[in-house]
């Protein structure tokens, strides 16, 4: 699905210049890597939750990108195309490593809210201090099934647009919205269980 070209960022590389043959020279391709490495790495890190694995996977993603440069379709933002490749690669990795949690739908109850697969323990402190909240939310997001984790991470990663999330994940916009809602419901319930005192204030 085509969507509007993103506003250009302050950068030396306007899109979609990355597909030009000049970038098939590895030294020139390093400009593409430098520009997008942070985006790809931060997404992959949140999918696998391991710094060193994220580093390896990011390298592999850029290798794939380099080999596929000629297949990039400029009607999509280059960053979204990169994230699509990164997402597919991270999903393959989690499947191989059996890191993926149980399918959301397989454990969803009649209200469509997953149960059982997020076994949170409330932090020792009753008052949700900042450090425990940070740990809690990172852990909670990581424990989401991959298909729900990906929408939440993309939603908060440099403000990726919903249309772009749909393209990156290869799903309709309506599914993106419903996954965001359901993921938030699960996180909300986990939050209420972990911090019951907060809700009563």
């Amino acid at each position, binding site marked *: 699905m085509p969507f509007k070209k993103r506003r250009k960022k302050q950068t030396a590389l306007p899109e979609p210049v990355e597909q030009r043959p000049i970038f098939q020279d590895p030294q020139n391709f390093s400009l593409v890597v430098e520009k997008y490495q942070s985006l790809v790495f931060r997404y992959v890190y949140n999918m696998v939750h391991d710094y060193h694995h994220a*580093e390896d996977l990011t390298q592999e993603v850029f290798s794939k990108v380099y080999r596929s440069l000629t297949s990039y379709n400029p009607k999509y933002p280059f960053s979204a195309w990169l994230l699509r490749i990164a997402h597919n690669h991270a999903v393959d990795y989690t499947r191989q490593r059996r890191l993926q949690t149980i399918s959301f739908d397989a454990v969803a109850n009649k209200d469509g809210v997953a149960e059982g697969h997020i076994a949170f323990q409330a932090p020792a402190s009753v008052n949700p201090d900042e450090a425990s909240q940070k740990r809690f939310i990172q852990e909670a997001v990581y424990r989401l099934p991959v298909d729900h984790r990906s929408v939440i991470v993309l939603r908060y990663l440099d403000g990726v647009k919903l249309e772009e999330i749909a393209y990156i994940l290869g799903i309709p916009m309506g599914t993106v919205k419903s996954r965001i809602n359901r993921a938030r419901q699960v996180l909300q319930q986990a939050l*209420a269980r972990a911090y019951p005192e907060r809700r009563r204030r």
Partner: protein
Amino acid sequence: MSCTAVQNLISQYIDGRLSGAEADVVREHVQECDDCAQDFKDSQFLSRLLKENLEFPEPPKDLPRSVIRTVERTKPEK
């Protein structure tokens, strides 16, 4: 609008993705309904937690060099 319908729209409201008319309906409902007001507060709290606490570390400084070493051993697909 029912509480369920409003609660389904709250996260879109917080993200600023609702039209003016829908946003008005959610805002008015939340002002009058204690349950939805609580749900609204919880959603705002979760949204803030996600914005402030999701971890997005920067990659190692030598990553581009490592990538280039890898791609130098490969050729783009024709």
